[in-house]
């Protein structure tokens, strides 16, 4: 199934896991086909990835990959989650594949980071599959400010990303209209919180830092995207939130 019930069947699942991460060129090609399909269906869609029957697309992507996500649609909200999971997954893949990984992290720390990498990749791939053709294309991470050969740089960035992820899900949940989508967001946000706790504990073991407040933040998408923007080449804009 896809998350966009209005998506024409011809533009649903793009394929198996290899194709879940198409290059932008691949994306534009498939999006072009989608536009053609929508035009044939008389929907008048003329923008890439504009799947809405009346122009109320959840996610509109321009030729540079910049995305506008409409929070009045579940597709928009879920693409927001997909964007953040892409960012997290790319970060941890970079962490565990860095040549210094096994020398700068103790064995238990390596296990944490490898597990978190797996979880974020699973989240990313799940959203890609669930959104199907309604998903935004691959984002381009910008990690130049991170020193992947430095333990503290990696863990402090990880802490920022995990806390940000928790606050993002907490703040976006109110915009989901379908109960099953809210349910799956809930299944993921607590895992992000478990990550945040573990990463914070690696930075400050056996302290109260794993949970600095009794109530986690619930941040607006604008605040989250402002924080995430330096790490993503494309610009993501949220409307109707």
């Amino acid at each position, binding site marked *: *199934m896809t998350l966009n019930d209005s998506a024409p069947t011809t533009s649903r699942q793009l394929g198996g896991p290899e194709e879940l991460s198409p290059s932008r060129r691949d994306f534009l090609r498939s999006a072009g086909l989608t536009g053609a399909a929508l035009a044939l269906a008389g929907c008048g869609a003329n923008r890439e990835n504009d799947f809405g029957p009346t122009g109320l697309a959840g996610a509109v992507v321009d030729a540079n990959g910049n995305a506008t996500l409409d929070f009045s649609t579940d597709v928009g909200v879920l693409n927001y989650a997909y964007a953040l999971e892409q960012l997290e997954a790319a970060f941890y893949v970079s962490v565990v594949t860095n040549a210094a990984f096994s020398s700068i992290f103790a064995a238990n720390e390596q296990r944490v980071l490898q597990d978190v990498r797996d979880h974020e990749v699973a989240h990313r791939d799940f959203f890609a599959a669930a959104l199907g053709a309604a998903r935004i294309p691959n984002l381009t991470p910008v990690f130049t400010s991170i020193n992947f050969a430095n333990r503290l740089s990696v863990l402090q960035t990880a802490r920022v990303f995990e806390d940000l992820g928790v606050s993002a899900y907490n703040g976006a949940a*109110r915009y989901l209209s379908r109960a099953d989508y809210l349910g799956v967001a*809930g299944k993921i946000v607590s895992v992000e919180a478990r990550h945040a*706790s573990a990463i914070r504990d690696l930075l400050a073991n056996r302290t109260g830092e*794993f949970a600095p407040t*009794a*109530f986690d933040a619930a941040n607006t998408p604008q605040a989250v995207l402002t924080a995430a923007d330096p790490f993503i080449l494309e610009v993501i804009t949220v409307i109707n939130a």
Partner: protein
Amino acid sequence: MSDSSNTPGALSPVDSDMAARIVSRRHAITRGATASGMVMAGLRLGSVPAALAALSSDAFGQGRLPTVVNGVLNFALRLEYLEAEFYNRGVAAANLIPAADRAIFTTIQAHENAHVEFLRTALGASARPKPTFDFTAGNGSGTGPFADVFTNYATFMAVAQAFEDTGVRAYKGQAPSLQPYKDILQAALTIHSVEARHAAEVRRLRGNFMDQEPNEGWVTNATTDIPGTAAVYAGEDNVMQLGIDVTTVTTVSRKEITESFDEPLTMAEVLAIVDPFIV
């Protein structure tokens, strides 16, 4: 955002902005209602939940919470009472928690008590009283399977883990019921994720932070090393999400996929789990 930011809660100023936005929207829909002193006090403290708790009273009126909200919040309150008193007693117990671990449990203790206060405030006159607890899980006999819970640190940690992992699943299971009540939903979620932080910390502490199964911060399959807690972890081995078998759309192994998604419990399932702890 600086990637080397060392400031916990660096995003917290946003919370006040959000609260102000909620207040103004709430005002719009309550047709001229003025914010109560508690709302303004909450905002001055920069505390969203305090403001939201007051807002829920403002919005629905004393004793007139929608039935579903009343039911869910009292359910949550029952669990928070359980957790708060558990940590209050554990922290107060002599020779139970080693000095090196006290900060962990005083932190959790403070949070659970704050959750109780929040829910009591939100519920107002509808808040149900605190039950009497038997933390041995003996239904009041004091001789249940966790009879040494306040004298044996390993037992105390095991019960703490079971409570935290149950709490995560309990809040998660109620989110769809709160969906029409956006502010309440959001407040509940900000507690839900804190319970998950607690759960991860206690799980890792039980494994002396070696992060090896079954003492990682996340739940693998439906596995538990704590006797009598199978129901706490039942169904955590699920890999079907929104009708998708996640094992078919990623290269990540099934075991790690089960860790990637925490599963909900129904209210009835949670109440059955905690029943032996309530007299």
